[in-house]
């Protein structure tokens, strides 16, 4: 049985959180373990829920996504982080995201296939096609 992928969603827009919840809700063996609307809450929830994947907006009020990415990757390097950018053609912010350890930069409008392949990539990187040994 595939191991469940735990995902934390971070965006200041409730619309985007609803969109992602809808897209991810169609995928098997995936649980949304938390939602945050700014970078500070994202860091706190990442520590509390230890997700496999964080999907996080770059531009947010308060602590922004790039600052939160830096902290999450330094404290929890095992967590994969995909950044979300409205200005995805802006190679500067996308490049900065990759430099800080993001595994992907998702543009908007969202492409369901790209999100599905992102989740599958995380599943594969966890060796998650079989039961996690810790479950036994």
């Amino acid at each position: 049985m595939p191991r469940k992928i735990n995902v934390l969603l971070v965006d200041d827009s409730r619309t985007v959180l609803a969109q992602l919840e809808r897209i991810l809700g169609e995928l098997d063996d995936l649980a949304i373990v938390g939602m945050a609307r700014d970078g500070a809450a994202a860091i706190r929830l990442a520590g509390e829920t230890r997700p496999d994947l964080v999907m996080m907006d770059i531009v947010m009020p308060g602590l922004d996504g790039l600052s939160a990415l830096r902290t999450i990757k330094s404290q929890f390097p095992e967590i994969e982080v995909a950044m979300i950018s409205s200005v995805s053609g802006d190679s500067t912010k996308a490049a900065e995201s990759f430099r800080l350890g993001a595994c992907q930069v998702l543009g908007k409008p969202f492409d369901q296939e790209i999100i599905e392949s992102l989740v599958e990539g995380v599943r594969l990187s966890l060796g998650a096609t079989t039961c996690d040994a810790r479950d036994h």
Partner: protein
Amino acid sequence: MSVKFFGQFLIDQGEIDASHVREALELMQDSNPTFGELAISMGFMTQRDVSEVSAEQRQRDVGFGDLAVEMGLLEPEELVEVVQRQRSQRMPIGQALVRLGHVRHDRLGLLLDAFKADQAQYEVEEIALPDGLASHRVSRFVLELLPRFLKRVAGLDARVGDIRRFASLPDFADIQVSVPLEGPRRLEVVLVSDLAFAEALAIAASGLSPRDLDPEMVADGVGEFLNVLGGNAAGAVTREGHRIELGPPDYDAQLCDGWTVDLAVGVGRAALVLSTS
């Protein structure tokens, strides 16, 4: 599905992964001269000027060249020359990936063609803009992409009317949300609509049912649509070498000057205002 840069496209296509992009970016950083280095070599700035701008840049998120002009250390026409030199000398990410062995040389051309085909939907025609708006290059992209994104995000067919001077708020203005596009000139993109249009947009953008919508969510849905529209327009114009930053939505936009277009839509009434004040 969005404006993107080549590295991102290659990841989406499964050709490479993020670690390859990271390596390519490092190689590019090592190989490409910085703006400051080029400005010095071209005799436009001194090492001391560059240090001053770098120190200021640590406090503010503004591009080096724009900041140097703002600080009076570089002339606007010199900025253009340095940017042109930087672009002509810059190692592209595709070449860096080939050099690192992550993309085969004989495959790069095919991938670039596929990338161009993917991004062709974001190319815009040279539509006629009135004086006063023509200098806001990003406005061209906003107006061209508007009906395409209304269709893609919300499934709404829309026709954009003629551009005219903004005079006053239309009588159907139940909702007005804006996003700023900050560049050499500021442009505020404002969507003004009645409740029916805003709700249709919010429902389509969020996927929620009408009974789950609240007034905050309706405004948020319109703001998110403007984010996508403004973000892709900014991305497209940034790729041409003009740096544009997208700001967060403002749900209480005040309008006083600019240009407007009516939107012929199937649901409710809406107009887009491009505020230049």
